[in-house]
């Protein structure tokens, strides 16, 4: 299935949920509203036949006050590839978990929760995975500060601004 066909089918079914969609480097990429992420993932897996979740990563778009979860989905039986991005508001980053569809999403979602503070509803075991359980804050958020960071050499930000987050 080509990238155009994939996009067409998703547009036909979930037209109102899609914010942007395009084909880049032969891959379908689209941004959706977050409340339908599970249904769209199930459609991609069961009806389009892309059954392999390569990667799930969170992105903190602090400038737009949004969090994003990017699913890279492909198949072991056909060449189709898709990058699906779901946006949620930054102060209430909650999505539905896709663990019922893919077992691999379990650890990826735990990692996104651990490092970015994105919460996944219906996740069977949502707790920190890489950091200690008593860690405060989510380091991959763009506004996370720690005095141990080595600033980027030609960065504009002043080094040594220490703001330790006090809430989890």
């Amino acid at each position, binding site marked *: 299935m080509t990238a155009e066909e994939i996009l067409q089918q998703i547009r036909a079914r979930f037209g109102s949920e899609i914010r942007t969609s395009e084909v880049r480097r032969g891959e379908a990429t689209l941004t959706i509203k977050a409340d339908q992420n599970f249904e769209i993932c199930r459609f991609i897996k069961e009806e389009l036949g892309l059954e392999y979740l*390569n*990667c799930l*990563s969170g992105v903190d778009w602090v400038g737009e006050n949004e969090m994003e979860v*990017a699913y*890279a989905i492909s198949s072991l039986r056909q*060449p189709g590839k898709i990058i699906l991005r779901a946006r949620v508001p930054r102060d209430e980053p909650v999505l539905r978990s896709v663990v019922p569809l893919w077992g*691999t999403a379990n650890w990826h979602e735990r990692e996104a929760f651990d*490092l970015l503070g994105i919460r996944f509803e219906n996740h069977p075991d949502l707790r920190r995975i*890489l950091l200690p359980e008593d860690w405060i804050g989510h380091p991959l958020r763009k506004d996370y500060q720690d005095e141990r960071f080595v600033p*980027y050499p030609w960065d504009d930000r002043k080094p040594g601004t220490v703001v330790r987050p006090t809430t989890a």
Partner: protein
Amino acid sequence: MTTVNLHLQQVKEQTAESMEEMWVNMGPQHPSTHGVLRLLIKLDGEVVRECIPYMGYMHRCHEKIGENRAYVQIIPYTDRLDYLASMYNNWAYCLACERLMGIPIPERAEYLRVLIGELQRIASHLIWLGTFGLDLGNFTLFMWCFREREMILDLFEAVSGQRLNYSFMRIGGLALDVPEGWLGDVKAFLQWFKPRLPEYDRLSTDNIIWQKRIQGVGILTPEDAVSYACSGPVLRGSGIRWDLRKNDPYGIYDRFEFDIPVGTSGDVWDRFWVRRQEMDQSVRIVEQALTEIPPGPVLAPVAKKLRAPVGDIYSRVESPRGELGDYIVADGSEKPYRYKVRAPTFVNLSALPVMLPGYLVADAVAVLGSVDIVLCEVDR
């Protein structure tokens, strides 16, 4: 709640349920975990009922460091991910950047990357075979495999000056051309190495103790392997013929002739046998690359300060351990906005709780060994 308290609470709950079952810690300092990994295992007598992995002991926030470094500066950090296959980590990262920025690679660099990548695959599989033999009490195999691995490390030292953390690849090609006579050294190594493979077989494949120890243990069904997105020898051991070098070729892998070995039942034996046969195939690829390698430059003319156009990319390569993916989000500046590494062993390890239950605790070592984890890559 701290880890210790949580653990105690779990133990209490479990002992109340049944006097037969108990929770046992395997690790974090267990020798068979090849690093620091803690497996909390529920035992019913000698039989494993449940397994909860705890990792992160070597977490160093690789991705946060990446967000605060220029694209070129990240290359040395990728060495430290899978330190047994550093060349492949370099390659995966550089390839992602090249695809993102649209940088073409000189022909000679493509060939050298394949050649070095396959030598790295042999070295990585050798260390796996050796330490797996050590896990199962086969010490001679360990010594023999390390002998040949040492020769590959010498070859890499000759090109890069380093033995493990090479930082040899650059965005746009390679840091240096190989020294004069190096390709002849590779040929000489292959001459020595090819007769060694049957010798390993005499110690492992043909060994009845080895066979009985790992056949029928730690079975991973193809359905579970796909659901847990396993890749590399773990996926192929379950009988799925999927190799990115063939199915989604990167570099110039589409020019080489090689087979993809697969298993049938998805047990530890199949994962061992797939890796063992992959060494044969890597030798084939190296031999083909040696005959076809053209002269020319090894580094494309690239700017000193690299900027990627706005956009994102998920780029993947077939590392010795499976699908090594880099998800890079670029915002047009000289450092990535978000940089995520999809580590193959992190994902393969997540299938361990599916593989272990129902087998003896002694088999847990063999099953864990067959996943071929590198904890620096799992923890990132």
